[in-house]
Structure formats: structure tokens, C-alpha cells
């Protein structure tokens, strides 16, 4: 089995990353009752004998001694990483796999990319190589960051080019948190557009997320938990937000519950690669099936169910409801409505007690209400993993390559243009060595090109599906 390395960059990236490692440990603890270090755990964790000083402590089989996350934590401020290292997960992280600074990036992409990029390039490469050496077969880098700030956005995307050059055969999956309209960082449009260019050129697959959607999902869950409707007691450990406690406290710490959703996304994405099932789906299959053209690699994701009700009997109707919900705009992790846009491809990754007939029935049921591009009318990729997530009997992750991402990109461009027309705050960027106005122009042009691709696809929506004339053969 192959291994993956998580690189968490900036405040957002590290906070989400932290939730991810917490959930991953819990999931493996629930599945692996005997405490044996097996292939599934090794995909994200090393087994280390902590009594051995230096690097020799790796144990490849047998009982679990001490688990270390295959992670690199990068932040240009110390606050978040320090908090993690003092918290309950401190032993999970290898203290040598951190890169921190003190001053932060000032919400400036150029500082993150140009200044810290060149300053820390060697160190970053060294840590990456070390991580790779610890892997039997490194398959994928997961990068977690936000687009609107300085470190996650700038240094996070600087990393992509490094990874592409140094490890060209390893996939680069990026989870990017996009700024919502009411983002309080004024320069977030600049940072996001500059970062988008890097994502366009150097990422294999991007999973865009936006905070507003996560917030709306949490509100819905909160409503259910507190509604007190008859028969709606929720099973205690079954919330996507991982605990009722997190939901109750969410008014003070909303990001905890929100980050857990993203953490669940990453766990479910990799579940079929880690655990057994009747129809496995490895990480390299995601890119193969969902990216028909290299530039169109943005995937809209949705997770269902968000919670499981306590009653034990799960009739088929509930299962079918799970499939329907995956396509509703309320369950998407960015503001998007895939049902009313054009699908290029769709993946359904199911976990738990679901069989192929359930999958087929639901695909047939939902297909008529969805529009697929003419050359991919049956563009479904499916997987069945036998191991459900903790607290659920089954779950579904839907990944869609769909033109419904277009509005997010168009809004971003609009916000950018509003600032750029007035040249507002531009000097903060231009004063950084290596930054010129042409950089901004190139970034906008890259985004415009992407939007145009989606426009052209959308234009085919109302056209009748015609078959291309076949080769004629002389018999």
C-alpha cells in the first residue's frame, strides 16, 4: 500500500490539519482493535520506537509503539503550531518536521511566496526528502491551506512548484479554503488570484472549500441537535463535526466544528485506498477519472450524512436519501449548485454497508435530473469501501467536476478587479523584490482563461447530443 504526506501551511492549514490527525487516529483506533501496525495505518503514520535516538527508530511491523504523523507543519507565525505542540496531539508530530518563523506574512501573498519561499526553500526540501525517505512507496502529497491570507496562500503555493520539480511522480492534492464575500482580510482577493495561478499550473487536483458553506452546514446541524423533535435523537459520536460538544461550543469557536468537516472530507477521500472493499478506489484513480483536461482539475465535494439518527433500523429510503442529499446545494462544501450546472465527471465514494445494487439504483434514479457533458454521458466513477466512518453505518462522499465552480471564480475575479482598478494596497506587494504588476496581469489572465473554458462547456449544455460519425471500414 502506498503512503501519503500531509503538508499543512499557515494558520488555517494547520488548524484543519490538526483536526484531521485527531480524526485519523480515532478512526484507526476504532478499526484496528489489536494495536498492530498494519498497511492501513502506515498510509498516514510511522511506527517509531521512541527510545531510539536519532532516525533509526522506525518499526515496520508488529505492535504499535508510538505513532508519528507523516506530516510537515509550516507557519510563519508561532502561535498556532505552538498550541498544537502543547495540546493533546503533541506526541503525534515529529518535532523535526516543523518550519516556523516569528513575524508572519502580514496577509501578503508576496511575502509568503517570494520572501519566505526563498528563505526557507532549502529547509522545506530537506524536510520533504526526509518524509519521502520514510515511505516505502510515496503516492501523494496533501496540501492544506487557505487562499486569502499570506502564508498559506503564498508559501503554500510556492511549495507546489517545489513538489512538482522534486517529486514529479507524486500526486499533489490541494485542499484550499477560499475567502467568502465577507472576509475580513481586505487583500484576500489579491492573495487568492495570485495563488490561483499556481494552483492552475502546479496542482493535480484542487478541492475548493469556502467558510460560508461550512458555516451554513454547521447551522443546519445545530438546528437538528437542538430541535428536540420527537425521534430525532442523534447518535452521540456520529456527527460529522465529531461531537455534540463541538457543536454546542461552536458559537464561541465556530472554526473547530467547521474544520472537522474538512478533516472528514480528507479521511473519506482516502478510505477506499486504506481499507478493504468490494470495489476499491486508489488515490491515483481520482485524478485519472475526474480530470478530463489538465486545467480543469477543480472538484466540488459534498459529504453525507451529516449525522446519524439514533434509531437502528435503516430502511432503504434513508440510504437513498443519503444519495439525494449529496447532490443538493446545501451539502456542497463551496457555494455551488451542481444540479443546475454541467457535469464533466462525478465520483461517488461510499463507505459502510452499501452494496453495488444500492449504488446502481440511485445512479439510475438521480441521473435524469443531472446534466452531463455530451462526451461523458455516463461519467460516473464509483467505489465501495466496507469500513464505515466512526459512528456511522454508511457514508457518501461525492466529488464533482462541474461547471458550478465557475461563479466562485467569477466573484473572486470581480472582487479583485474592484481593488485593482483603484490600485488599492498594491504597493505592499510591489515593494517586495521580484513582484511586478505583470505578475498580477498574468494571474488574472490565467483565471480568465479558466473561466472561459467553463463558459465554453456551459454553452454546450443546451445543444442536442450528437454522435460523432464513426470510422467506416471496408470489409
Amino acid at each position, binding site marked *: 500500500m502506498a503512503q501519503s504526506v500531509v503538508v499543512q501551511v499557515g494558520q488555517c492549514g494547520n488548524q484543519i490539519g490538526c483536526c484531521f490527525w485527531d480524526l485519523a487516529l480515532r478512526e484507526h483506533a476504532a478499526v484496528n482493535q489489536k494495536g498492530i501496525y498494519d498497511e492501513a495505518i502506515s498510509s498516514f503514520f510511522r511506527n517509531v520506537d521512541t527510545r531510539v535516538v536519532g532516525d533509526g527508530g522506525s518499526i515496520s511491523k508488529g505492535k504499535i509503539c508510538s505513532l508519528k504523523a507523516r506530516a510537515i507543519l509550516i507557519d510563519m507565525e508561532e502561535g498556532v503550531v505552538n498550541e498544537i505542540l502543547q495540546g493533546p496531539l503533541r506526541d503525534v508530530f515529529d518535532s523535526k518536521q516543523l518550519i516556523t518563523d516569528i513575524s508572519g506574512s502580514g496577509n501578503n501573498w508576496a511575502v509568503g511566496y517570494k520572501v519566505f519561499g526563498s528563505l526557507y526553500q532549502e529547509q522545506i526540501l530537506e524536510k520533504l526528502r526526509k518524509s519521502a525517505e520514510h515511505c516505502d512507496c510515496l503516492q501523494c502529497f496533501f496540501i492544506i491551506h487557505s487562499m486569502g491570507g499570506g502564508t498559506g496562500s503564498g508559501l503554500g503555493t510556492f511549495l507546489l512548484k517545489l513538489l512538482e520539480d522534486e517529486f514529479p511522480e507524486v500526486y499533489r492534492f490541494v485542499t484550499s479554503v477560499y475567502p467568502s464575500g465577507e472576509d475580513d482580510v481586505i487583500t484576500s482577493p489579491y492573495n487568492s488570484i495570485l495563488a490561483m495561478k499556481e494552483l492552475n499550473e502546479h496542482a493535480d487536483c484542487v478541492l475548493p472549500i469556502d467558510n460560508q458553506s461550512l458555516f451554513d452546514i454547521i447551522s443546519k446541524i445545530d438546528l437538528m441537535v437542538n430541535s428536540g423533535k420527537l425521534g430525532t435523537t442523534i447518535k452521540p459520536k456520529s456527527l460529522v463535526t465529531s461531537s455534540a460538544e463541538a457543536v454546542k461550543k461552536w458559537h464561541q469557536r465556530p472554526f473547530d466544528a467547521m474544520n472537522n468537516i474538512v478533516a472528514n472530507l480528507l479521511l473519506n477521500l482516502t478510505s477506499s485506498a486504506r481499507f478493504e472493499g468490494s*470495489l476499491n478506489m486508489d488515490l491515483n484513480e481520482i485524478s485519472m477519472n475526474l480530470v478530463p483536461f489538465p486545467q480543469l482539475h477543480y472538484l466540488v465535494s459534498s459529504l453525507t450524512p451529516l449525522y446519524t439518527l439514533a434509531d437502528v433500523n435503516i430502511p432503504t429510503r434513508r440510504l437513498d436519501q443519503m444519495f439525494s442529499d449529496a447532490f443538493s446545494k446545501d451539502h456542497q462544501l463551496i457555494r455551488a449548485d451542481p444540479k443546475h450546472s454541467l457535469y464533466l465527471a462525478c465520483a461517488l465514494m461510499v463507505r459502510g454497508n452499501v452494496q453495488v445494487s444500492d449504488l446502481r439504483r440511485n445512479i439510475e434514479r438521480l441521473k435524469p435530473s443531472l446534466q452531463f457533458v455530451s462526451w461523458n454521458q455516463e461519467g*460516473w466513477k464509483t467505489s465501495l469501501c466496507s469500513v464505515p466512518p466512526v459512528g456511522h453505518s454508511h457514508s457518501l462522499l461525492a466529488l464533482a467536476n462541474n461547471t458550478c465552480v465557475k461563479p466562485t471564480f467569477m466573484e473572486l475575479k470581480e472582487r479583485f478587479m474592484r481593488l485593482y482598478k483603484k490600485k488599492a494596497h498594491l504597493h505592499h506587494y510591489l515593494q517586495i523584490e521580484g513582484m511586478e504588476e505583470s505578475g498580477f496581469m498574468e494571474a488574472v489572465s490565467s483565471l480568465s482563461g479558466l473561466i472561459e473554458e467553463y463558459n465554453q462547456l456551459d454553452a454546450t449544455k443546451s445543444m442536442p447530443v450528437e454522435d460523432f460519425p464513426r470510422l467506416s471500414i471496408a470489409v
Partner: protein
Amino acid sequence: MSIVTVQLGQCGNQIGFEVFDALYTDSHCPQGLCSKRENEAYQASCKERFFSEEENGVPVARAVLVDMEPKVTSQTLSKATQSGRWKYGQHSCFCQKQGSGNNWAYGYSVHGPRHEESIMNLIQKEVEKCDSLSGFFIIMSMAGGTGSGLGAFVTQNLQDQYSNSLKMNQIIWPYGTGEVIVQNYNSILTLSHLYRSSDALLVHENDALHKICAKLMNIKQISFSDINQVLAHQLGSVFQPTYSVEGSCHYRRNPLGIDWQVRPPLPGLPTLGKASLNRGLHFNMSIANLVILRGKDVHSADLGGFKDSALYTSWLEPINAFNAWKTHRAFSKYEKSAALVSNSQFLLKPLDTIVGKAWNMFASKAYIHQYTKFGMEEEDFLDSFTLLEQVVASYCNL
């Protein structure tokens, strides 16, 4: 005479297990509905074909398991061992860490050459255990990356290395409404390559098997396990020992021995005049049909319907195209059972559909970069399309 089975990819390995299990269970079935001596001869024949003997009496399947990632093969190996009744050879498995990513080009152009020696060595070892080799049975799917791409590569190698042995590929036709988005590409690439190196392609469609589970067996929540068991049952009833046509009491020695390849007559020869019993009914034209009957009253069964010339193409007499094998020994506790293996226009429509969909996708250039990344070119796709259009046309003209 023995058959060596090569199970490739998740599909191939999951099915392979069910097939060996079905074969074993049937051969050890106490109610053979025949004499003890006959039952023992049947068991011995089945054993020789599919199993070799291990020291402590547990039969070992004559199989090589190949997959590019470890989860399925380790499950398959342990399921067999835990059953306690039969198992796979300890060293019969070849697997890697990373899978083929549903990419035919990766399976064929990267994994193939890289692991050629190891895989062919494993197969060689298995062949050496056989007193006499009748041929290879290769189980693979068309939709994924390993079964399809690596399967095509291995079959080619078998053609080169064992050109005198029969190679039969069991291919699984994916569900029409998508299991893998690039399944049509993978399918046409697989089929076109197999056409050049395989002797026979035995096809099972997931959709058809699914319908059998739903309509005929009334299973409510159908799993791949159910589907694979139906498939294994069908294969078992074809491959288990049968009498040779002469009616002697020896079981037919070559289980793959049918003239699978039939050539149309040279142009210019007159077509044979036909009188048909059933005018007006439209049948899928057949080139060859084989009926296998097992159990009670096999010799009195009326097979007249299979000999109707309306079933066969104009340049064939039914007597040349139809074969029947009959055995008293019942299969899998069924008092009477029949199996039909047919080379006919039955698969014309599914084949045409897959070629059409793949062509539409190819015309839009979608996903092509994923294949050219690993050394394939658009030329290779065009060659495949050309070959398959010829196959479609040939079957159309029956």
C-alpha cells in the same frame, strides 16, 4: 490435462476465488446422481485440471494471483486458506504497492515491462507443476487499469512464450452506466490487443449478471459477491469434466477443446441454401454453439431447437456449428443443468455501444493526456478503433 489460471486485478482475483471455490465444492459434492466409480473419475479429472496436491492433502489451486496493490490479493489468499478446504500456493502471488490508477496505459506500458520477468516466472513455475498443460485461463476486467492493461500485456507474453497452448480470457464487461469513467477507453484498448493474442474471449456482462441476481434469484441487496458467485457457477458448469463425444467413459481430456475460431468462407463461393422451421423470427446469428448438459436424462434430451438453421449464418450448416457435451454426473446438486456457450451476434450491440461512446470521448480529446503521459499515442487509439470496427462489421454481416 491441466489449466493454469491467471487472476489479474481486483475483479480477476475476486472472481478467481469464487470460481475455484465453486469447482471444489461441486467436485466434492456427495450427491453426484451417478455411480461411485463415475463420481471418483469426475473428481480426479477436476482435480487434475484445476488443483495440485499439497503434502498435507489440502489441494492447491493451479493459479497465479497478480495485482498492483496488496489489499485484494491478501484478502483472497486468506479467504482460501481459512476455508480449510483448498488454498492458493504460498508463493503464487505477485503484488505491488501502488495500483494502476484505472489507466490502461499504466498497466500495459509501465507495469507490464517492469514486472514481466517476475510474473512470467511465477506462471512458468505453475506450468512446470502440470503433467500436461492444456492452456491458460486469464480472468480480468476491461474497465480498470491492471486487469485490462496488464492483462493484455501478459496475454501477449503468453502468446509468445507458449504459442502451442490455448489461451482463453474471461473478460468482465462493466456496467453500462459507469463504474469507471474511462472504462470505454480501457475496454477498446483491451479488446483490440486481446484480439491479436488470445484464442478465445469469454465474456460476462455485469449488467446481465446483475439482472440474473435481481430477477431470477430475487436477491434484494445485490453485492459483488453475489454477482461473482453467479459467474463462478456458470463457469463451473462449463469447465467441469465432461464425456468426450464418442460416448466412452473417459472424461474429455481437453477442457478448452472447441474450435473457437471460425473463418468465414472465401468470397465467391455459393452460400448454402437453407430451409428453416421458424421463419419470421429474428435470431442473433451464430457461428458456433455449444450446449453442455449435466445430470438426469441427458441422453434423452431434445436438442433439435439448437439445430435450426435459422440460428446460423448462411455459410454454415448447423451440424458443423453445433456441439453437445453430455455427462451423467450432476453439477452442484442440480438434478439437471444446462449451459450454453455461444459465438454469435449477441455481443454485437454492447460492443457497438462501447465503441461509439469511446469514439465520442476520443473525438473530444477528453482524458487523452492521461494515456499519452505513459507513452501511448493517438495512433494507438486509432488502431484499436479500426480493429474493433472491423470486428463489428464482421459480426454485422453474419
